[in-house]
Structure formats: C-alpha cells, structure tokens
C-alpha cells in the first residue's frame, strides 16, 4: 500500500465511530477587495481604532488627504535620510513620478534578485485591506504592492492605505480576502515592524523584515497628522 492509501485508511478507520454529518459547504465571502466597493460605509471610530492600533506597534502613522500622499511619502523617506527606493509596477503613477525626482528609483522589473533588493533602502506600496481591531495591514501582492520580496528585503516599508480599505475586524477581512473562484492570491499580513522577544522576553523591534514601517493613511477627514513614531 502506498503511504497515501495507508494513512487515509488509518484515518478512515480511526474516525469510523463518528456519526455527525459533514458540514454543508457554504461559499461565503464577496471575494473583492474593499477598494472595489466604494459605497461601503466607513465608520469614523473604525479609522481611529486602526490608526491607534497600528501606532501601538510602534509603526509610524501619517494621516493625509489623497492629494498629499505623494508629497508625504517623499517627505517621510527624506526625513529618514534614505536614498534608494524600489517601486512596484502598478504603483500610482503620480507617486512614482514624485519619487523619481527625489530618489534613486528602482522599478520592480529591474529588481531581479534578492541580492539587488538588499542594496535598496526602502519600498513604497499600496495595500489590500486594513484591520482596525488588530492594527493589521494585509498585502495581496496585486500590481500596486509588487512581488513578496519587494516588501521584505529593504529595511523601510512605506505603505499607503485608503480609508475605504480599512475594515473593522478579522472576520470581515478574512471574508473580503477570499477569491471567489480560482487560485487564492499570496497574502502577507503585517502588524507593525518585525519583532522578537526571544532574549529574556525583552521586545526588540526589527529582526529580519523591514525594521521601519510607515503607514500613510489616506483620510479625507484629516489634516496631515503624525500619530506616532
């Protein structure tokens, strides 16, 4: 008997006593990201909670209206003294243009290896979903976010998220992130910069992933406002 047949036979024999019916298959989840649902109501409290919880992980949160995003991204990278930045193929053309004048910009198509990315200071991306109760940003690696390694190897990640992309809790996010048919996208859930508590349980921010996370929250109700740093 092959290992497969044998293990399945063991499993079926081990569960022969089970009398409960298998759960009916319920296909749930709308499968589209919130940016494609412009009429979804955004609660003010949800946005506040999101900003507060992201900042609680010692990420920097900057809240600006849409027209100030490009300038804010440039300003944040300058303030951090960074020189080079990689941009995903599908990043907002206006933001890429603003970066072009100010930094050494590496397009995603030229970032052919992790070694190349290792020499780059920062990455600027969009995002898929934000979760308020946990302060989480989910990347689904759509063209405005790039391949997974782009947001992993450079030491600073500037991530732009629209207020219409922020949901209240984990269940809402999980159901939005389900692809209705066909393959799931690869997902990266990010809650603050990388961290470890492995040495005497003392928290150290930043081990292998980007040690600096800057979240630019597009908030039509807000003046430019840095929540934490």
């Amino acid at each position, binding site marked *: 008997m092959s290992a497969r047949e044998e*293990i399945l036979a063991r499993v079926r024999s081990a569960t022969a006593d089970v009398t409960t019916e*298998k759960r009916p298959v319920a296909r749930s989840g709308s499968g589209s990201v919130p940016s494609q649902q412009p009429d979804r109501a955004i609660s003010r409290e949800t946005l506040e909670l999101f900003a507060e919880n992201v900042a609680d992980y010692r990420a920097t949160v900057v809240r600006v209206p849409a027209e100030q995003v490009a300038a804010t991204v440039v300003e944040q990278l300058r303030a951090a003294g960074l020189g080079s930045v990689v941009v995903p193929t599908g990043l907002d053309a206006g933001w890429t243009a603003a970066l072009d004048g100010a930094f050494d910009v590496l397009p995603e198509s030229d970032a052919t290896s992790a070694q190349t990315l290792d020499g780059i200071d920062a990455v600027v991306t969009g995002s898929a979903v934000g979760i308020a109760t946990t302060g989480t940003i989910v990347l689904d*690696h759509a063209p405005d976010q790039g391949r997974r*390694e782009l947001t992993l190897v450079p030491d600073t990640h500037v991530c732009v998220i629209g207020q219409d992309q922020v949901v209240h809790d*984990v269940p809402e996010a999980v*159901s939005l992130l389900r692809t209705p048919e066909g393959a799931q996208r690869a997902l990266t859930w990010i809650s603050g910069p990388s*961290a*470890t*508590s*492995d040495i005497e349980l003392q928290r150290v921010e930043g081990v292998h992933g980007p040690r600096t996370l800057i979240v630019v929250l597009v908030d039509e109700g807000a003046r430019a406002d840095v929540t934490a740093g």
Partner: protein
Amino acid sequence: MVTQPVQQTSPTFVGMPKFPVAAREALANTQQRTNLHNATHTIREKRAAVVGEVDDWEALRVAGAEAKDEALHHLGDYLEQLEESLTARGATVHWARDAAEANRIVIDIARAKEVDEVVKVKSMATQEIELNEALEEAGIHAWETDLAELIVQLFGDRPSHILVPAIHRNRTEIRDVFLRQMGEFGRPAPADLTDDPARLAEAARLHLREKFLRAKVAVSGANFAIADTGTLVVVESEGNGRMCLTLPETLISVVGIEKVLPTWDDLSPMLQLLPRSSTGERMNPYTTMWSGVHDGDGPQEVHVILLDNGRTHVLADSVGRQALRCIRCSACLNVCPVYERTGGHAYGSVYPGPIGAVLNPQLRGTASEVDQSLPYASSLCGACFDACPVRINIPELLVELRGTVAEQGGHRAESAAMKAAAWVLSDPRRLAVAQRGATTAGRLIGKRTIRKVPGLGAWTDARDVPTPPKETFRQWWAREHGDGTTTQRAADPGGRADGIPTSNDGTEPGGER
C-alpha cells in the same frame, strides 16, 4: 483491520528518565526557574489583557474548537480535498507514515536540488521528526532562522518552551555563544558585541541574511492548511519565516495531518485565537499565506509533506482525539504551576507542558518510563483547560491516561497505597487507629519536612510528604466538646468514617427520636 501505529520515540528522547527524576534536576537550576517564572507570568498577563479586549472570547473558543473538530471528524475527506486543491495550484503533495519517511522525502528533494544546506522556519513538526539531525547525517546543513532556535542550535541545546525556546538562557550566555559559535557556521558576530538584546538581534540579522540570500531550498511547517483553497499559513514575528517562504526557489513544508482546516472562513476564529493566546498580541507581526505556486512570486517549486507519525493513533481514541485540536500556542504552558517550575526539558519530548503531558503518551503510547509518568506531571488544577483557545480538556485527558497507565500495571506502589487506603478508610475503627499513629508521628516530627518514606519510594520521589498533624479533627472535637460522645460515635460503625455524625445520632435539628 487497519491499525494506527504509535510514534517511535525519536533518538534524542530514547531512555529519558521519568518525569519526577528529570524534574528534580531541573528544579535545581535556579537561573532557569527565575527565567521561567518571569516569562510565564509576563506572557500570562499580556494574554489576559488582550483576551479581555474581545467581546465574546468564549464564543471564539467554541468556534475554534468546532472548526478543528469538523476537520478531525471528517479528516479523510478534508485531506483528500487539501491534496486536490494543492495539486491544482501547482504544489506537489507527499504522504509520510512516520518520521523516517518524512525525513527521507525532504532529503531526496534537497539532493535532487543538489544543495548542501537548507534554511528553516521554526516548526514543531520538523522538531518532532528530528529532521535537522537526519539532514546533517545526509551531509546537508539545516540552518534554524528563528532567533531563539538559532540560539538553541548554536548551544547544541534543546528548546525548553514552544514559543520562546531559549527562555532558559540569559543574555550574557547568548552573547558568549554568538561570539564563540557564529564564525563556525557563517558570518561571525561583531567583536564588540554586547549583551544588549537589540545588538544581539542585529548580530543574528547579519549572520542569517547571508544565508537567506543564498539559500536555494527552505523547509517550513504550517500553522494551518486550508482544504478548500489549498492555502498554507505560517504565523511568525521576526520575518525569518517570510524570508524562508519567499526567497528560495524550492519550499518544502512538513505538515501534520491534524493541521487541516475545512474552509477559508475557518481562518477567522483561528487568526483571532492564536496570536492572543500565544504571544499575548492582538496580531503577530507577520503572517504568510500561500496557495501552491504563485507565478513569478516566491518559490516556484512547492512541496507539501502530510505527516502521520502517530496522529492517527490519537485520532482513533474518541475522547483523546480532542488533543489534535492543539494549535501549539503554548498558553497552557504559561499557566501551568508544574511547567513554571520544571521547564520544558523534563517532559522528554518536543511537546512540553500540559499539552505535552497529554500528547506524548498519546502519540508514543505508554510503554516508556517517561510516557508512563507524564500523565502524573500535573496537579489537575485545570488552568490549562481554561487557557486553551480550542477548549482541549487537558485534565480530563490526563485522568484518562492515568487510567490507561494504571490498567497496564504501571505505578504499582500507588495502586497498592490506594488499596491500603481504601481498607483503612472503609472502617472507622481502622481509621481511628491510623490517625492515632499519624498524630503521634506528627508530634515527634514537629516542623521538619519529610522527603522520603521507606517503602514509598515512587510516591515520595515526586513529592514531599505532608507532615502529619499533631491532632486530627476528631481528636480536636473530642477535646473541645469533651463529652466523649463523638469519639465514641466515631468509633461506632453507625457513624461516618470521616467523623461527621450521621443524622440518626440525635444531633440533627429534628431532635431526639
């Protein structure tokens, strides 16, 4: 008739002494006890705070337990569905009956890729099958990339906690081992390294980055494997997981068959339960989800090894199978009064603490000394059940396992003692005689502690014997209410053996008859 074989005890743990012996040794390690106390209490408090933020934690626990039960009760169907989903998305699925088979599959893939090293994400399943040792034997270096696992590996040590495996080491020891060992395996630690945790983490970042950037093959486990979408999930903090899951060309994931979740939506309770229970965070820093091969993004060759290694043996026990719900959060370790004092090594397995006391004898059977003793490594206080995010009734399972051990003739001294106790307690006259003996001894011993009683070796090896009281309740009652009636009645077969008068002795409010 199909049988479900138990797991072979892995070489590291063969011949482990029984728990009380290993525990006594661990108790003498004051550094470890201090570290463990700090760690368990700190995580316990953090966990309580973030669990308190959730409106209905109990409902989440129920949802989590139900999702896992659904998967376990219909595991055959869900495993086939998982295999189908993974294959449709470009992954190659392998099945491994035991540790040796799983290790062989990993080695064969690594050899086919002509590599002499792999990078590893912290994974309980690969620790269980001792993959690193098997790879080394095959001439392939396995680099652990989680900071704590790196520390443990550099020490040539074993992990002592599921979540913070190097908790038994302090920062100075860690600096010393970095300075001594890193150069042996790759980029050396900077010569001016201090014991500041931030500097130590930086040294690990530099040491490991070299390995991440050149590695061709990575090995991981998975926290969850979703049957309907073919998605594997790895939950982590440091980013070493993302490095391993993203940069190499080939990814091999060793996944216990109990890691299956039926549907994508079952992630919703799990991603709320796990981080809050594990690190006491609202969400862990990084979670990676991948479904087979993603075109042009991440590893282009993806292998998944579905591992039995004793799990079907656990599954065959209709009560015991709830232990397979375990999501390895380690909340039960942090609340356990026994674990807090002994640490993880005494459990003789990669699974320590209350869940280890259950899972090890379930997976490996109760033939060895250590597996016979583990069900007794508990005060049955129940804190573990309360903390468990998937409601595993650990005390219930420990009692069941004690029954199994007792039935097969283990703990003979204990069953003899219990029989003797039953004989004494079933007759008030015998009890009165025994108690007179005990109080006499109590007066002689005074405040000293009894550590050993001749003839009760097995019992007193594990615990100090309470010093007998100078006076029993019944003697006190007789002295305070000195009419002699109670003493007399206590010796009377009509009274209860515990000395509490029964209703027909005229002391009931109903008065004389």
